[in-house]
């Protein structure tokens, strides 16, 4: 059934998107078709399999300390998972730092379970044969905020600093190709090939930086989190590599997430 749907949508895209010589389109019909596609695919999202895996991992005793993550404080108190994802990135006093969800999970895996940053950062992104534990865990945590409004806080000075620094990084052009995030993500209705680039400076589009992550990517059948997306963006920008779960990435995430505040998070997404 899905196969027929996909074929139908591809035909629709080919018919509507097709090119209009010389004219620049203001409302991109291709983007609308991809949105429809995503909505249908989200009905039975393989991300749910990773949600289930993440929940199991959360409750399982693991690591040198043989402890579960059930005492992990995601900002609402130890072990409180429901609603925590949409309240991140946020400041955590125990580390005196703003952390996004995955950085916080990594922190809990280190402090509660005894894993080291080095081993978690070695191969932090999914491949065809392996999904790293933090990816399943962040999928579980994110799913527990399904249907809730994004509300990344700006009450602590370090949260406001993270936003300001994230914004600086967002607009910083460098690298071999002179790209910044803004090169692709600060204008309306632009796409790279057929991939729409939402304008993250605008609230109603910034939600697209949050919605869809973590996301099941059908290309390769892998689960990816936003940490993967940011790393790959910098790669495509021809920059050097940002550190996994680093402050830089938490700051960037603070900028785009705060821009999306007020919009509803639909939970883990699905992607081409």
């Amino acid at each position, binding site marked *: 059934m899905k196969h027929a749907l996909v074929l139908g949508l591809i035909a629709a895209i080919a018919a509507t998107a097709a090119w209009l*010589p010389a004219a620049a389109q203001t409302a991109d019909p291709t983007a609308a078709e991809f949105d429809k596609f995503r909505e249908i695919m989200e009905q039975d999202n393989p991300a749910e399999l990773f949600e289930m895996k993440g929940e199991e991992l959360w409750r399982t005793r693991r690591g040198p300390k043989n402890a579960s993550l059930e005492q992990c404080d995601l900002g609402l108190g130890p072990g409180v998972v429901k609603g925590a994802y949409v309240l991140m990135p946020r400041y955590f006093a125990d580390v005196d730092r703003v952390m996004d969800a995955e950085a916080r999970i990594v922190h809990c895996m280190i402090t509660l379970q005894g894993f080291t940053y080095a081993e978690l950062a070695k191969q932090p992104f999914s491949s065809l044969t392996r999904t790293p534990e933090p990816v399943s865990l962040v999928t579980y945590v994110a799913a527990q905020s399904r249907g809730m409004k994004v509300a990344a806080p700006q009450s602590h000075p370090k949260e406001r600093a993270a936003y300001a620094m*994230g914004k600086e990084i967002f*607009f*910083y052009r460098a690298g071999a190709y002179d790209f910044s995030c803004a090169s692709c993500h600060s*204008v309306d209705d632009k796409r790279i090939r057929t991939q729409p680039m939402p304008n993250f400076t605008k609230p109603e589009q910034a939600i697209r930086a949050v919605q869809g992550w973590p996301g099941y990517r059908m290309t390769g059948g892998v689960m990816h989190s936003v940490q993967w997306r940011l790393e790959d963006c910098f*790669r495509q920008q021809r*920059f050097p590599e940002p550190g996994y779960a680093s402050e830089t990435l938490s700051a960037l995430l603070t900028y785009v997430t705060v821009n999306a505040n007020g919009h509803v998070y639909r939970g883990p997404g699905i992607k081409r």
Partner: protein
Amino acid sequence: MRLASAGRLAVAAALLASCATPQRDYRADALAMMQRDFHAKGIAGMDRLNEDSVQAACNKAKDNPPQEVADKLQKEQLAAIKWPADGKLLGDWKSGERIAQDGRGMTWSDTGGVGGSCYNCHQIGPRESSFGTVGPSLYQFGKLRGYGADIQRYAYGKIYNAKAYNLCSQMPRMGHVGALTEQQMKDLTALLMDPASPVNQ
């Protein structure tokens, strides 16, 4: 009377205090943070985080630099263009199409050849519907502008260094940074400027 003076003194002191406390330089802090958090990988070294003159001018002015700054830097960028020694700017448009389609190169996961990545941002030939819209359409480039030597020179120059013509353009400087070879740029120029190219049908 005394209360009023004390009040005025307090206000003055408060004003002095706020002037004395510097505004936090978030930009400097962000750049320092990036220096700490990024690391070299593959061919992508940490030097790539440093702004060159063009990036610095565009970053400072949010891509809208003062005219005199733009004029000066554009002139410098233009002067640095290496034009083909044989004076010929048109190569083979069939190769040009392949180069335009190829988005590889210059990232930390690349080890081999570099493509133009042109379709990532531009509509170009009539048979490719998977084109980006970050840049303007190049369809019928030569047909619309004429096939003269001056337009050939503009096309080649733009591919070599887009910033020589528009300082804060989002288009990479494919020749200037050594991404594309002279032959590749000639082939791309032919894709746009050869009357026989499908782009100009």
